[in-house]
């Protein structure tokens, strides 16, 4: 039997990046969140191929080595699953950790080729409006992507953080669509077909669509809007010393750079500008910090991100008001942590 069609390990499910234990902005490769729908296939890079066909001048089959021989670029981008934050949105229990609340985002220095380079190599025709990306996993996962994104900033990557892609991250080739919901950055990429319309695959119809009030569902909701999360302090930390400490966390936006992060220590009554560490990069995590002097009082710590389009991270009540309590995917509500007088820290998600 073809080993790529035998799902291995835990075939469905997810593992989250332990955000509460990490510093800086790069997610160590082996701690990158994982979300599999049909296991991790065992692929051999020496025989793996990428087929590009459909509305192109020159249908072409590339080996992995040939793709690695094209001029390379290295960029840092986050990938966030659009289901990130579903459990705390639906049921904001106090014992949730930063890993459980927001751990399905990870930030990586990716190396590969611009998809635009391959589009020019094969001669994508003007009438092509969408392309189908297909993985070589057991379910041959497929998603439809607008061609414009392929020209803009899409990449075919084969390395993360200076080493080959981890098998769980798509070895040997992954489509990377910066700022978009993680599922569409197709792992184990084997085929791109250029066409005129979306294919309406299972994943973009029955799964990654967002029910809205009024009996509707938002489809092709690709972009991950601005979001932030305080990672320290966070549950299950217990603050055991009064005095100064940083409130530190991560912010990101699928629409570009983070422009501002504010922190509140009184549950959102007053807000203060946090410091951003380094220059924010488009569609990448940036770390923020705000120095806080804790005197033993009860406090509710929140963070609020604004991106360069002027979009301000909303509260959970705002999202429920515009989308409904039963909406799904793209959960980017303001959230944070309640600090008790005894220093114990618990999740606070009812914003």
């Amino acid at each position: 039997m073809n080993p790529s069609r035998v799902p291995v390990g835990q075939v469905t499910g997810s593992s989250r990046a332990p955000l509460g234990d990490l510093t800086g902005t790069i997610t160590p490769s082996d701690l990158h969140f994982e979300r599999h729908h049909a296991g991790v296939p065992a692929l051999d890079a020496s025989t793996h191929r990428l087929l590009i066909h459909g509305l192109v001048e020159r249908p072409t089959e590339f080996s992995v080595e040939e793709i690695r021989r094209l001029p390379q670029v290295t960029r840092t981008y986050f990938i966030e699953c659009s289901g990130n934050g579903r459990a705390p949105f639906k049921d904001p229990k106090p014992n949730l950790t930063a890993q459980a609340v927001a751990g399905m985002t990870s930030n990586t220095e990716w190396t590969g080729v611009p998809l635009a380079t391959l589009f020019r190599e094969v001669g994508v025709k003007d009438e092509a409006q969408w392309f189908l990306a297909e993985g070589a996993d057991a379910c041959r996962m497929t998603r439809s992507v607008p061609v414009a994104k392929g020209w803009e900033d899409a990449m075919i990557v084969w390395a993360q953080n200076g080493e080959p892609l981890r098998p769980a991250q798509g070895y040997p080739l992954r489509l990377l669509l910066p700022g978009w919901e993680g599922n569409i950055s197709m792992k184990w990429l084997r085929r791109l077909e250029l066409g005129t319309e979306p294919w309406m695959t299972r994943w973009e119809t029955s799964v990654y669509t967002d029910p809205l009030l009024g009996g509707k569902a938002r489809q092709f909701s690709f972009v991950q809007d601005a979001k932030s999360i305080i990672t320290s302090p966070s549950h299950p930390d217990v603050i055991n010393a009064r005095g100064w400490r940083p409130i530190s966390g991560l912010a990101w936006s699928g629409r570009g750079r983070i422009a501002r992060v504010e922190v509140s220590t009184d549950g959102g009554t007053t807000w203060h500008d946090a410091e951003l560490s380094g220059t924010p990069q488009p569609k990448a995590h940036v770390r923020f910090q705000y120095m806080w002097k804790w005197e033993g009082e009860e406090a509710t710590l929140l963070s609020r991100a604004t991106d360069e389009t002027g979009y301000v991270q909303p509260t959970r009540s705002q999202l429920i008001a515009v989308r409904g309590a039963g909406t799904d995917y793209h959960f980017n509500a303001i959230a944070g942590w309640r600090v008790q007088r005894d220093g114990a820290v618990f999740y606070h998600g009812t914003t």
Partner: protein
Amino acid sequence: MRRDLITVVLLLAGTACGGAGSGTSARAGSTVPATFERYDAGAVAGGPGAGTRYAFGRQPSDSLLGAWDTDVGKNGAELPPGKGSVAQGATLYAASCASCHGLGGVGGISPNPALVGRDSSAEGFRFADDPKLVKTIGNYWPYATTIFDYVKRAMPHANPGSLTNDEVYALTAYLLSANGIVPDSATLDAAALREVKMPYRDRFVPDERKGGAEVK
């Protein structure tokens, strides 16, 4: 696998040495634009020239295209020959699908989704109003051709790709019948499947979020 890892290291090392040797590494960062729309891989330092292809790769064989290009889009234009009945599908479902998706498709072991259900409380596409409503093929999926495409490529979970076209038509017919979309007596082939309209197809709307101050 191990030999391949070594190959990767050698390739990356070779590229880095080439870049330094040609004296372009200091400018490399500034040559990569914010977007790739105007990025020309032929024009990079040391490259073959603007607008010039590297011309890697080879034309795919008809057998490769035939084996891989099996996707079925929303209009069903690519649907293959073959046919299957609801009754044949019911037998297949019980043998190959019920262990994960439950008897009658009403849901089995999590996270395998429920496939069948037209519970009146979930009709009307009110999913945003009530988090407890369960999505099924009948009350949510916009296109019937998606069932054929996904069952053919991905099912059954432990042996994906093993079903014949006749079997996939039969399972599609059974799932549509169990969801009240086609009659119990139906037999589906390419032409019949293309004619099936799902009840809530028109409820899907484009994404109108676009950044800026408004929360949507």
